[in-house]
């Protein structure tokens, strides 16, 4: 009785000492995560809120906190250049995503036919993704320059009337962005599809073959439906690249001629940093965020639902 009484405090002491270091151990992971959480709260969420607040003010050269409600958004809606930029994004984004998917899928299917040198071809298709969009823009600007680039080359072959002056034509400049962006990103989509194709169970294909289905039919009816999730994530990544496209426009067209090939990202930068229109620039940034969320939320929703079901 007395022994146990004298042992008890000792044991309690040891336990408390252990729980002391145990408590530290329990806190350590949170402590390690804390700076990142703080950074994320401040630099991502806080800054988003800050930009939103700026978009409600009449800030011009410097941030001011005179609130004007949603006047900047109204100005944006009435701004011709913003509409050009938004329309361009729809045209550019739509074509960019569609062509990348088509080209990527085609190349992946062709590469999946037991090709010799498959590895080398894959490397060639994918390397542009390692380049900066600035480099891509500089190179394509040179190729698309009517005086010295592709147009001049084809003309020198004897096709005197050949015209490929999209870069300097306000109606077509936006399509040059599509060409360069497809060049850069389609190999990546090919890699995604190829991984998807390799993941398809062979027995499904064998069964379809035994049924006497032709190869194109097997692809159309069996294989491509299996690739739905890949299509989904590719669309997601590509549209994300499209909305963020800034460097490519700066390097390839400079938004021009005039502002014919502006995108929201260049509109935002021009107004916030060079035209002393911080309020308007912030409003355009918020709309860009809205665009990203409009793509992201349905995607995350379906992802979560799939995971719960599967």
């Amino acid at each position, binding site marked *: 009785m007395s022994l146990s009484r004298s042992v008890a405090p000792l044991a309690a002491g040891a336990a408390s000492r252990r729980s002391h270091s145990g408590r530290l151990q329990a806190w350590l992971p949170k402590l390690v*995560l804390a700076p990142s959480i703080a950074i994320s709260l401040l630099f991502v969420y806080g800054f988003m809120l800050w930009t939103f607040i700026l978009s409600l003010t009449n800030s011009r050269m410097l941030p001011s906190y005179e609130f004007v409600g949603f006047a900047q958004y109204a100005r944006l809606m009435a701004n011709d250049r913003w509409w050009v930029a938004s329309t361009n994004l729809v045209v550019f984004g739509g074509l960019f995503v569609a062509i990348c998917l088509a080209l990527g899928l085609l190349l992946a299917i062709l590469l999946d036919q037991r090709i010799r040198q498959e590895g080398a071809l894959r490397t060639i298709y994918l390397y542009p993704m390692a380049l*900066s969009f600035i480099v891509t823009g*500089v190179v394509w600007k040179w190729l698309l320059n009517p005086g010295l680039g592709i147009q001049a080359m084809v003309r020198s072959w004897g096709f005197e009337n050949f015209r490929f002056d999209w870069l300097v034509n306000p109606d077509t400049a936006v399509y040059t962005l599509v060409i360069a962006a497809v060049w850069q990103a389609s190999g990546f989509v090919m890699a995604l599809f190829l991984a998807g194709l390799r993941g398809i169970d062979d027995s499904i294909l064998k069964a379809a073959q035994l049924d006497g289905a032709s190869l194109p039919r097997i692809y159309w009816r069996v294989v491509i439906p299996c690739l739905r999730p890949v299509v989904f994530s590719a669309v997601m990544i590509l549209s994300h690249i499209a909305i963020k496209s800034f460097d490519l426009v*700066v390097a390839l067209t400079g938004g021009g001629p005039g502002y014919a090939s502006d995108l929201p990202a260049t509109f935002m930068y021009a107004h916030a*940093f060079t035209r002393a229109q911080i309020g308007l620039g912030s409003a355009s940034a918020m709309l860009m965020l809205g665009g990203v969320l409009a793509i992201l939320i349905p995607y995350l929703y379906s992802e979560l639902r799939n995971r719960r079901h599967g």
Partner: protein
Amino acid sequence: MDNVIRRRTLGARLGRAMLYAVLLLAALFYLLPLAVMLITSVKPLAEISPGTLLSLPREPTLAPWAKAWGEACTGMRCEGVGVYFFNSIAIVVPAVLISTIIGALNGYALTKWRFKGSELVFALMLFGCFIPFQVVLLPMAQTLGWLGLSSSRAGLVLVHVVFGIAFTTLFFRNFYVAVPTELVSAAKLDGAGFFRIFWRILLPVSAPIIVVSVIWQFTQIWNDFLFGVAFSAHNTQPVTVALNNLVNTSTGVREYNVDMAAAMIAALPTLIVYVLAGKYFVRGLTAGSVKG
């Protein structure tokens, strides 16, 4: 195999030839810009005229490279892109190392020391991968000013670390999720602490994901233009910004060969990494897209 051989009729052979033709044509499309860039960069200016896009240089010269590196004008200054190349290195190296270390620790804490709300923390941080950076530019500019880091390389390192850890955390978290927890639990029972377990158990198996993270961050930060142009001054600009300035500097004759040489200089580091470690590069790209 029999099947394959029996089907080798004329039609099948023709189809096969078509297949290779299409694949090679595609390869040409992807290679053409690089080839033109390289050819043009070693041509004397006199050989650049309409219609010579694909002609090989008659008198190949490295002078355009030398000029692009050391003398070409980028805006008001004429010291080439060399100094900016080193700016990029000075920004990329610390930013890649710091963001990778933080990402590794985050990924480890989020998977092997789960706590109530750890999934929420991950989701919270993951969102940073998706925002368009335009939405943080203005507050970041002001914050860098307050920190006294405006237009400095340190400021750019900070920005790249801050917006890189969402990606590195994602990489390491998804990698460590697949590492068996039994070893970690056993070590915990033996009284090993947080850092000891990381050092002894997780780190030794982390080589592939470290490579993926380093390559991804390296490519992202080296190729960055938006932060570089928004948060740097003439003496702290990364090479992408200098390249853009060089190409858009209009003094006298346009020296396309120098432009192309400068573009090659800016492209080489990431190209080399891609050629040496393409497998990991692709893994980073797909991991960046495959969500937690």
